């Protein structure tokens, strides 16, 4: 990669696979279970977290030498809260229906462990550019899992993708529904999201045996 040095590109690529915040570090599970019933909501959530974590990491990194370490958590919270409010207001202005659907979970990005985790673990000790890449990478790793889970849950649970009836119409019985197929209501419930994430973890660890934890 010409744009990024090898070390920098690892910052983005690692969290996408072998150091994924959800499947490896098991952080940010709460929102991953709550809002992934629809693909659209998953995508919006992923973009919101990319924005918050990317910018937030840069801000924290810029201030890393002036934040007194005793009150750093409060400072981090202020930064994250400010960014989340921006996201929330933008969504309310331009995508009201969606923001209603995501309800409190946009606000709860503040408590998403991935964000505070990256602030603490990375931004406080690294320069802004590298912090930015780390933020984007981790948020994207979170987003990828959200989108995969959202894809399967919407496809199998509602028979749609982004609202398009890709499997046919369940009421007029066209497409797959004509031969007796039915949507899986369990997919729309949060427990199934946990199982889907579990399956992703299973597939990932059986493809790369080094990821299997000793116990």
């Amino acid at each position, binding site marked *: 990669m010409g744009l990024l040095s090898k070390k920098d590109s690892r910052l983005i690529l690692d969290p996408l696979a072998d150091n994924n915040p959800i499947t490896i570090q098991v952080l940010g599970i709460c929102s991953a279970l709550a809002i992934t019933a629809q693909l659209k909501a998953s995508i919006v959530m992923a973009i919101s977290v990319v924005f918050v974590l990317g910018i937030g990491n840069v801000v924290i990194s810029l201030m890393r030498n002036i934040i007194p370490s005793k009150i750093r958590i409060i400072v981090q919270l202020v930064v994250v809260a400010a960014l989340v409010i921006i996201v929330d207001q933008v969504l309310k202005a331009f995508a009201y229906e969606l923001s209603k659907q995501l309800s409190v979970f946009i606000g709860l990005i503040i408590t998403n462990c991935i964000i505070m985790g990256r602030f603490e673990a990375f931004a406080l000790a690294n320069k802004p550019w590298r912090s930015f890449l780390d933020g984007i990478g981790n948020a994207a790793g979170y987003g990828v899992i959200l989108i995969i889970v959202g894809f399967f849950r919407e496809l199998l649970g509602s028979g749609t993708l982004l609202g398009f009836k890709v499997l046919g119409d369940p009421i007029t019985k066209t497409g797959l529904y004509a031969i007796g197929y*039915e949507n899986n209501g369990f997919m729309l419930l949060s427990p199934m999201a946990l199982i889907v994430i579990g399956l992703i973890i299973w597939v990932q660890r059986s493809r790369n045996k080094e990821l299997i934890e000793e116990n």
Partner: protein
Amino acid sequence: MGLKQNLHKLKEKYKGTKMAPAFNALHTFLYTPNETTHSGSHVRSADDLKRTMNTVIMALIPCLIFGIFNAGYQHYAAIDSTLRLDPLGNFFTWDNFILGAWTVLPLVIVSYVVGLGVEFIFAIIKKHEVEEGYLVTGMLVPLIVPIDIPLWMLTVAVIFGVVIGKEVFGGTGMNILNPALTIRAFLFFAYPTWMSGDKVWVHGAKAMTGQPDAISGETILGSLAQNHEPIYSIWDSFWGFIPGSVGETSTFLILIGALFLIFTKIGSWRIMLSAVLGALAMGLIFNGVVDAGWIKDGNSFYGLMSETFWHHLIIGGLAFGIVYMATDPVTASQTNKGKWIYGFLIGFISVLIRVFNPAYPEGVMLAILLMNVFAPTIDHYVVQGNIKKRMKRLKAKTA
């Protein structure tokens, strides 16, 4: 050369290859293995996993046969209600048997083929022997689903139940949840329109909806939950001439199965008895609440709450769950004291869910799954309590 020799030869031929566990399983399933243990200490017992499983299946066979007749009977009785005037005379007929076999046997076949298929695949991938764990589950599954469940749904559910309920934990003997109930719970949450309501318990009811000759068959629990007077007497319910999941309707046959399991020491009488006590206790509490006048006629819980307490044991799938699934030795509590607590809470919670959650008219499935989760915790505290008691005794002695 007999089949046994052929199988043995095949087994030897494939020894060490990927397919070895499959031939091994087939061989040991049908015959006693030729090999014997040569070294080390070993226990001789007639009671191996396979025989345990077969005993439970034997206890289930009456329920299956009754279920086949009942499937036909419910269908014809829904069309011509005069048949219900003489249930016994109109029950064991060829018509009922043929229709029942036509609808029930596919469920049995799908359950076994899919479930054992998954087991074989996992055995080959993990390179271990195929375990007999699915034999009982495969028989339980067709008995606890509604008669008209589409076979593809059953297939999906069985794959889910065996993989997520059992194989991810390490296979037979390692599972936390009862696999048969995991399968049923999956169906229940995934395809609720096929698992509850008054159109799923009688063959053909769903397909004929909206037609002039439409039929339906509400279960007793369904009627009570909506404060309707059930059309079946408690004796119909005891003998089993009522709509319901395929094999759970006859309390009488379940009772015989229970005695058989207790007599052969396969099923735990502690769990069965304490679950019955738990259900009776909760039923009595509800009856008391109604008698005290706190819940009046017209309240949405009145129908189920005012039902005479011991009827709870006879209606619905409670008896079947207590006898065949709460006693599953893998997922139940292991300690004797733990079994009392575990069983009691199953009965207690079943009736509680039944009454208070009209969306889940049969609480026993969720109650058993819930207690499956808590069984290890119960055991832990029973064992710790025992250790503490003995430590105290030891201290008293040495002091």
